[in-house]
């Protein structure tokens, strides 16, 4: 545990002593802020229009009209940002040969992987928590339901955690950070759009594609549905990603 913390602390420091974390967080917040602003404007104009039809006004729901689309927008930004956050994790160690220090120290490969993984999760958490400020405004000036917002955030965090696990795996494959980012981005996008292909597929194949796709599991959570299937999906995805990373590093050394 101590060793994981040592690695994690060092990685967090690296994120925050270099411009990486600041650039990522700033761009992320600007984009999220923009989406939030336009969604609120749209929601406002819709509410004003609906005010004339009291029957329809019942159907106006800030959770569905602002938060759900906002979470989907954030998920797309994460899709673009996470590869940039994870690309250096192992690639850089290999490039500047600091991996030789890590692997000749009395710590296990798992501890190194987990330390790095948790550090990226920390940055993700900071990003998501900062967007929480926007939600606070909606709670002050409106009356959204809390539960769907919370499950939405949980969904975003788990989604980001799954992205990170995949990113860390690709980072262990190459010593080139750009290649690592491109591979991660491509793989994430592929997992995202698997559900599109499922519409034209049939039978079991359709179910498999749907299950594998990020989208389906995430969509439930933005609507306030917390299903163990989704949780199991994310946790197995993360475990699998980290396990692959471990295998890559282990076999590299044995070659």
């Amino acid at each position, binding site marked *: 545990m*101590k*060793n994981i913390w*040592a*690695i994690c*602390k*060092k990685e967090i*420091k*690296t994120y925050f*002593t*270099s411009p990486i974390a600041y650039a990522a967080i700033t761009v992320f917040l600007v984009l999220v802020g923009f989406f939030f602003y336009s969604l609120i404007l749209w929601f406002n104009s819709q509410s004003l229009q609906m005010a004339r039809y009291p029957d329809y006004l019942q159907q106006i729901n800030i959770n569905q009209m602002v938060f759900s689309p906002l979470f989907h927008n954030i998920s797309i930004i994460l899709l673009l940002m996470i590869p940039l956050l994870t690309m250096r994790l192992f690639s850089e160690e290999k490039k*500047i*040969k*600091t*991996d*030789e*220090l*890590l*692997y*000749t*120290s*009395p*710590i296990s490969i798992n501890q190194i992987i987990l330390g790095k993984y948790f550090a990226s999760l920390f940055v993700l958490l900071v990003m998501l928590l900062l967007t929480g400020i926007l939600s606070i405004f909606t709670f002050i000036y409106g009356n959204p339901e809390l539960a769907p917002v919370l499950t939405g955030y949980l969904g975003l965090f788990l989604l980001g955690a799954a992205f990170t696990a995949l990113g860390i795996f690709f980072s262990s494959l190459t010593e080139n950070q750009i290649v690592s980012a491109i591979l991660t981005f491509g793989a994430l996008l592929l997992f995202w759009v698997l559900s599109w292909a499922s519409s034209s597929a049939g039978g079991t194949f359709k179910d498999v594609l749907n299950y594998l796709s990020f989208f389906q599991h995430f969509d439930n959570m933005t609507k306030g549905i917390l299903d163990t299937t989704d949780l199991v999906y994310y946790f197995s995805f993360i475990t699998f990603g980290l396990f692959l990373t471990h295998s890559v590093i282990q076999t590299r*050394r*044995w*070659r």
Partner: protein
Amino acid sequence: MIEVELLTKKFGDIEAIKNLSFKVEEGKIWGLLGPNAAGKTTTMRILTGYIPATEGKASIADYDVFEQPNAVKKITGYLPEVLPLYPEMTVYSFLNFVSEIKQIPSSQRKEAVDRAIKISGLESVRRRLIKNISRGFKQRVGIAQALIHDPQVLVLDEPTIGLDPAQIIEIRHLIKSLKGEHTILLSTHILAEVTQTCDGAVIINEGILMASGSLEDLTASFKKKEGVIIKLKNSGKDTQSLLHNIQGVDKVFREENEFKIEWSKGKDLRENITKFTVEKELGLIEMRPLGMNIEDLYLKIISGGVEQ
């Protein structure tokens, strides 16, 4: 302290080292000597647990490198050939990080870092970013991280490479000062490194052990011939053959008025030669022993001139 037995490492079809065996005694500085691509780095990486060997055994302080890697890593400090430094960290925070992953208890960490900084002479740069310090200081940070957990064994891969002559001398002093408390294995392709800092050497070439032992043993065992070089004032055309006629002389080589005279080991012809030159009035003005130093030995070994 360090024992290597029939170690082999293959990268695909290429054998980086073949059946390598040697021993390093406790408290000594031993040099791993060989030309570039001889397998020095591979040997050291195996010893420090960075890569596994294909075959063979290696142990440090009776801990098997492959069976008990963590025990070995705890008592071994390693300076890789390419310094494993994070450029964005300060010297202090880097060493602090290393002290954490080397599992120094938190109560002793500060002390350990300060000690390493002191031994390696890094006081003046402790708060500076590693990317901003000179190559010589970086090398010192590399050594500091290797000895931060006060390891019994230090494995230093080319510790003086890329340094200027003054820095080389400093680092050599530093390494020598660590002798006794630490058993040191250092690799180099520069012979002077071995003759000036080491007690013994393991000479390898193309992954094969060519010779190993203390410096005295090494030079002695390869010195089959003894001899002198003499300088004569009145040498003539026939001097070479005249000298050859002295009883016991095997070979005489001539280079202007210098003559290299060789005889087989165990005899001493110096007196006879002096007498002879005086009798013949050859004008002996200089005589020096023909020592086969380790330099000749090394060159011979790596060019395949000596087989053991």
